[in-house]
């Protein structure tokens, strides 16, 4: 059974107004005026960079290119296209030496460990440059990957603010297209580029187009799994996705603190980050 197409179209002007307003507000009230973005050459980080420039001005955005030896040349070319189109400052810092210093100690290290190390080395460089540039790290994770846990904790998931975190991948694509991201970046298969030939959809086993519609029903519309099956999604697909969402909850919350006192951070010591501003 085929399911009815679920329309995830967003209003571009409204999304843009809220997201640029968010970036500007949350960076300036923290006492900063600048932003740093890790550019992978892919769609998500390109969009974060475009939005940061729209919010803060090109002179206030630093784009980082952090290739590993296995990164594809296209990744660097596409990142360069974004840097040139926006006129932002940029720095290229290859991470091979840093990552390999650890990777080479363990000859049998699997791809997941290696990928995590690359993502976390990039995080270290991002936060170091954020201090050097006096800007905040702007994140690039979208709602689909956050829900699926398709991200490295304290790696690419780390940022000060994340303007894309409530947009599904297909919506990132809509906004990216409207905001003028080069078509070649929009059209290429999404990849974490951690090893040769890796693609998100190949690794996940389903397409973003398909899973975004299911997640929208499960998360936004509060469909029960059986309602999704009734709506035409296969039982196996619904179960696989539900399982992923559940299994990766740990990536979406702060580390657990064991409560001992009457007032504990995270449970009953409750303040927004914008406290006093």
């Amino acid at each position: 059974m085929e399911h009815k197409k679920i329309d995830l179209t967003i209003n571009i002007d409204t999304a843009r107004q809220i997201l640029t307003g968010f970036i500007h507000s949350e960076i300036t009230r923290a006492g900063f005026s600048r932003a740093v973005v890790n550019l992978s050459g892919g769609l998500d980080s390109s969009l974060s960079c475009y939005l940061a420039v729209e919010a803060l001005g090109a002179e206030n955005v630093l784009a980082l290119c952090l290739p590993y030896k296995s990164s594809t040349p296209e990744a660097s070319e596409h990142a360069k296209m974004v840097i040139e189109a926006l006129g932002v400052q940029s720095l290229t810092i290859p991470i091979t030496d840093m990552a390999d210093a650890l990777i080479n100690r363990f000859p049998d290290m699997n791809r997941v460990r290696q990928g995590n190390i690359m993502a976390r080395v990039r995080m270290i460089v991002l936060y170091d440059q954020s201090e050097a540039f006096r800007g905040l790290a702007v994140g690039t994770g979208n709602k689909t990957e956050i829900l699926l846990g398709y991200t490295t904790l304290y790696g690419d998931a780390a940022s000060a603010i994340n303007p894309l975190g409530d947009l599904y991948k297909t919506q990132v694509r809509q906004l990216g297209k409207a905001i003028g991201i080069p078509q070649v970046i929009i059209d290429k298969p999404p990849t974490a580029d951690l090893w040769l030939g890796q693609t998100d959809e190949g690794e996940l086993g389903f397409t973003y187009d398909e899973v975004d519609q299911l997640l929208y029903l499960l998360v936004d519309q509060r469909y029960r799994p059986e309602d999704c099956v009734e709506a035409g999604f296969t039982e196996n697909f619904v179960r696989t996705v539900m399982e992923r969402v559940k299994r990766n909850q740990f990536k979406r919350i702060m580390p657990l603190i064991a409560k001992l006192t009457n007032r504990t951070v995270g449970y009953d010591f409750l303040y927004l980050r914008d406290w006093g501003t």
Partner: protein
Amino acid sequence: MKLNLALAQINTHLGDVTTNLEKHLELIQRAQAAGAELIVFPELSLTGYCLQDLVPNVAHHASEDDPVFRPLLEASQQIDMVVGFVDEDHRHRFYIAAAYLSKGKVVHIHHKAYLPTYGLFDEGRFFAWGDEVRAFDTRFGQVGILICEDFWHASPPYLLWLDGADLFLFTSASPGRGLGKQPALESARWVEDINRAYASLFTSFVVHSNRVGFEDGLNFWGGSTIYDPNGELVSKCPYHEETLLVSEIDLNQLHRTRARLPLLRDERTALTRDELDRILGCNQRK
């Protein structure tokens, strides 16, 4: 009779009452210079919205002895105003409150009666529930104040209508949510629809002052409105932008609309009471 009403669609500093007070006084001055006779600030305009554990630290008492209310009451000699604040009563319960100030006096205080505690909201955890919905006299006629969730329920506006309110002053700090194809967020469209409906159903003026800005990842959408007793839009502030908008309201429209459409005259209040008695009585027996 005409009323020049100012919608003060502002952003606020979270937990910084001093800075927010300065902004209030500045806007009050600007509104007055523009000829406004009444200025309406949004919900919790003196404190910011997501206060959580800051609640006890930002509470004030609406009186002349209070350092925040003293300058506001002074300013109210020239212009009536509605301000949003955290009210601490003498038993140290904290309320989301709105005060109507006029001619140096506190005319009315409304305590928010419906505290949303679901979804992204957690008001019931930090605040006490108000337990009165009352219309009150002003120099512009009978007025009723409600705060955000209060008017997501149909009964408080209805009670105010029966209690004599012809001018409804609604205040919000409404987080924007529900981005779809349309330019207006779902939350904005919902509020606009019901406010227009209240104006039409109660043949009254419905004023809505909503805030803008961000608190962490929450956006507040603004879009403050005034609807007349025909349900027609009198004025509207833009979404998401700080705005001070002064509009003239022709209060004589009440006469004209109700001459044409006597919904208030024909309202069967005794029937409502009898049926409510029956319905609530039934529920008790269950």
